């Protein structure tokens, strides 16, 4: 079992690259590389030892390589303070990094047809998945979307690895103009897909899941919920997910996800406590309508 435990390490930065609109950082992290399975992520401390930023930043692992005992690459867009700091790293700097974290993509037993759907940087975890699926003899088709050409990530790799690769951009600057969900039905039909893997924003995941239901094929989605710890102790990253027993629970996306079976996620209720969730106000005998706690806890 110990193989699966995440490790915490101070990893030297090997390279920092620009990849279109993204930054890619490769660190030497043998412990993480050897445990990694597609879909897992790392949580990176940002800002240095006297940082005012306490919370780790989560990034999907984009690639692992055996060099230097094991390297891990993640890529990211600069959004706020933490990613701005990361973008300024140089090789030989040390990063405090925890991983691999989270539930990986379950893999099919048989060589089936898989379509991989990603939005922007959200596509990152699909690339190691594609390689793994190919090794298992699966057919892989890619559908990648983004706001513009610069933000479509990994087009070349996608074309190389996959049977087909379809691209969409909001502004039509690359591939087809529109959303991935508009082209996905055609791809699924053409490729006779048996399963969908999807990473990206919640609304996209919801639509992809609805589409999978229409085609009656399974779908695995990787969600990107705000996380404070990444290790399962803080309870900030919960979304309503239906369990095997049919009961909806506020479920941690860092340890019980980020990969979920699409149909288990109650997309329409994300950001709420569904009235029928386990322990929701009024859920049981208790008339606790005043659930506003003054303090955290």
């Amino acid at each position: 079992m110990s193989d699966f435990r995440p490790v915490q390490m101070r990893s030297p930065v090997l390279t920092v690259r620009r990849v279109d609109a993204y930054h890619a950082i490769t660190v030497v992290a043998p412990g993480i590389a050897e445990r990694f399975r597609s879909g897992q992520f790392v949580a990176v401390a940002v800002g240095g030892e006297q940082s005012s930023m306490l919370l780790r930043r989560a990034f999907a692992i984009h690639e692992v390589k055996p060099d230097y005992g094991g390297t891990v690459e993640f890529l990211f867009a600069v959004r706020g303070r933490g990613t701005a700091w990361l973008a300024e790293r140089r090789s030989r700097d040390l990063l405090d990094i925890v991983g691999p974290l989270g539930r990986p993509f379950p893999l099919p037993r048989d060589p089936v047809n898989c379509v991989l759907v990603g939005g922007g940087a959200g596509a990152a975890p699909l690339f190691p998945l594609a390689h793994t699926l190919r090794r298992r003899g699966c057919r892989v088709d890619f559908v990648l979307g983004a706001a513009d050409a610069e933000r479509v990530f990994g087009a070349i790799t996608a074309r190389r690895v996959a049977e087909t690769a379809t691209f969409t951009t909001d502004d039509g600057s690359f591939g087809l103009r529109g959303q991935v969900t508009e082209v996905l039905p055609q791809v699924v039909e053409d490729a006779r897909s048996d399963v969908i893997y999807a990473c990206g924003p919640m609304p996209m995941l919801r639509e992809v899941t609805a589409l999978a239901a229409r085609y009656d094929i399974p779908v695995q989605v990787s969600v990107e919920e705000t996380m404070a710890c990444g290790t399962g102790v803080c309870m900030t990253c919960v979304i309503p997910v239906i369990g095997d027993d049919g009961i909806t629970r506020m479920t941690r996306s860092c340890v019980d996800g980020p990969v979920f079976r699409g149909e288990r996620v109650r997309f329409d209720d994300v950001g709420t406590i569904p009235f029928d969730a386990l322990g929701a106000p009024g859920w049981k005998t208790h008339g606790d309508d005043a659930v506003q706690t003054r303090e955290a806890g």
Partner: protein
Amino acid sequence: MAATTPGATWWKGAGGPLLPPVAEVPAGGGGTQEEARRTDGSGRDEATKGASGMSPDLRTRLGDVELANPIMTAAGCAGAGRELAQFFDVARIGAVVTKSVMLEPRAGRPAPRMAETPSGMLSAIGLQGPGIEVFLQRDLPWLLARGGRAVVSIAGGSAEEYAELARRLSMAPGVTMIEINLSSPNLADRGRDFTEDPAAAARVVRVVRASARSDIPVFAKLSSDVPDLVGLATACAEAGADGLSMINTVRGMAIDTATMRPAVAGGTGGLSGPAIRPIAIACVYRVHAALPDVPIIGMGGVRTGSDALEFLLAGASAVAVGTVIFHDPSACVRILREFEEALEERGVARVGDLIGAAHRPLGATALR
């Protein structure tokens, strides 16, 4: 729908989490517990290694209980130890304080539940948890099997709920201490929490003390956002609390300048992390000055061994690490190591010598 999915059969691992974070340990068995101690408890030996007179004596007393060292987790920041056990041996630290447990399962507050703030975070979890039954069946036995000391935090909507929780915990073997999280809405008082009314807080303490087994110390956890902290502390001590934990999070708020709405659903949240440490130190100092005989578990922004030392000097007998665990999952053992080194550097022989030392007149601070 899942059942009708044709592909559902060929998933390697369908449904639930693929990765139980750590190996399951059979629940409750005394033998297993011993075993776990022997295999994983090495850290504990490390902590007291070289106790040939050189290493400081890290033991500390909280009421009738003695802990091997004063470093604990803070309630709600470490689950029941299970996730952190991936990073260190939970038996090495003084105790694991569990997430506040309630009678029933609780879904908590809607997202977003947190926002990062300078050297801190705002959170509003709303006491999400599985309820006492699951806790007693699943979480507590796991922790005990690993050799961890369990301080169980409890929360309720009425004094009766708290009392019932204390009764249930007293029947289970292995509970080291009970911590009463008083920052829980009092259903009889339109949801104001128990710390806002010293009489209500005292009543909770009294019934919990009466319901809990007598060899289990009961600590009352206070918030700093109260009109009269020393008054509240005194009321709790007089109602039978064996000690006090302080502080809980501080009322705060952040506005998301992109959405122009409060960053945490529901508006206010609890501020925690190093940002609030000076507030926490002031509280511990003040209460220790007023009630020097009441042991205190200090918390609020402990990040380093030196921070832990600061709390002890202010008057705490132990410290709990909360938010910083999110930053550094191995924080507790790192802090323990740093704390021990700090004592060695200063030639402090016993943790007990430090407690409240900042209150002593200047000449008296020299330690043996």
